[in-house]
């Protein structure tokens, strides 16, 4: 593969590559020039977007709304706080809520993602949950991103316990015991790789 194809491939999944890999490819003059041209091409499309008078009216109202603006900010901060500090609990709560009133499809499939637990200190048990949903909860807890080698891996189903007090490495080790699967923690990202072709 030539270097420009590699650049395009890397741009498709930037998070799958380390900062060093990015610095290396972008230190190549041709690749950097190509990347810059792509950024400018994107700008050429962005600048074509028309802003009508109604949008400007709405934006001025948003700016000068006496109390709504403040409340929106507070609401946004509150939501942000929930997302950052309580994402795992929120996700568990939402999924538990869903399991109380399961959709028809879920009922027919006869599985629930979580077994309810009474205390946040107790391990969370994922029951026949997709790897995608498991890792979305776990990665948020440890403030990590997730990168799958391919989409098939997202659909792998697991029944596994997770103790949120334990370090991430402990959880990854337990998942890695499944044959053919390799989860690696690199630079705040969990990379999910298949050692061989796996079936969902």
């Amino acid at each position, binding site marked *: 593969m030539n270097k*420009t*194809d590699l650049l*395009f*491939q*890397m*741009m*498709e999944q*930037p*998070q799958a*590559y380390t*900062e060093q890999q*990015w*610095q290396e490819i*972008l230190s190549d003059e041709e690749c*950097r*020039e*190509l*990347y*810059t*041209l*792509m*950024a*400018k*091409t*994107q*700008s*050429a*499309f*962005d*600048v*074509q*977007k028309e*802003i009508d008078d109604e949008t*400007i009216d709405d*934006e*001025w109202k*948003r*700016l*000068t709304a006496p109390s709504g603006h403040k409340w929106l900010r507070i609401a946004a901060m509150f939501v942000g706080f929930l997302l950052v500090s309580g994402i795992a609990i929120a996700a568990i709560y939402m999924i538990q809520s869903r399991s109380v009133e399961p959709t028809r499809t879920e009922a027919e499939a006869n599985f629930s993602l979580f077994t309810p637990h009474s205390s946040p200190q107790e391990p969370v048990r994922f029951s026949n949950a997709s790897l995608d949903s498991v890792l979305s909860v776990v990665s948020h807890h440890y403030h990590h991103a997730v990168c799958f080698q391919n989409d098939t891996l997202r659909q792998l189903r697991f029944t596994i316990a997770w103790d949120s007090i334990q370090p991430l490495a402990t959880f990854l080790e337990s998942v890695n015991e499944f044959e053919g699967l390799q989860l690696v923690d690199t630079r705040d990202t969990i990379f999910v790789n298949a050692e061989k072709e796996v079936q969902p």
Partner: protein
Amino acid sequence: MTRKQKLETLFRQHYRQMYRLAAMLLHDDAESKDIVHDVFAQLLASSTELHEDTAAAFLLTSVRNRCLNVIRGRKIQERVQRLYLLDLDTTIIPKDLFREETKALTKGINLLAPPVCREVVELHFRDGLTFREIALRLGVSETTVYKHLRHALQQLREHLKKD
């Protein structure tokens, strides 16, 4: 005219230009609106007086600086994912050159040949499709999409040199 009325006049007068600059740097509608919003929110909360002849430059510089703060706050992977320019931290962008270059690129995109090159560019940059999605849509491999994209970018580069 009250101070708030003066600011409203400036807001309506310069909004489009400010938004466009933010959109060109951040490539995101909501973030661009927030940038313009924050510039004026700060003006409303402060006692800064803007003079008519320097207002445009002040507002655009404020937008640019806020965009740079956003860009600097992100990791390289996020910058690439959002297709941010990489040299902004050290390069001063002459306003007119940026505008001229964008115009030239728009013209160049319309001249791309064969049509599949233009299609790939439009699907990716205008419609936001990934290379894999474009490959699926066109019924070709991703490598072929890369080839068309590379060809298109070569044409755009040549067009910029000539223009």
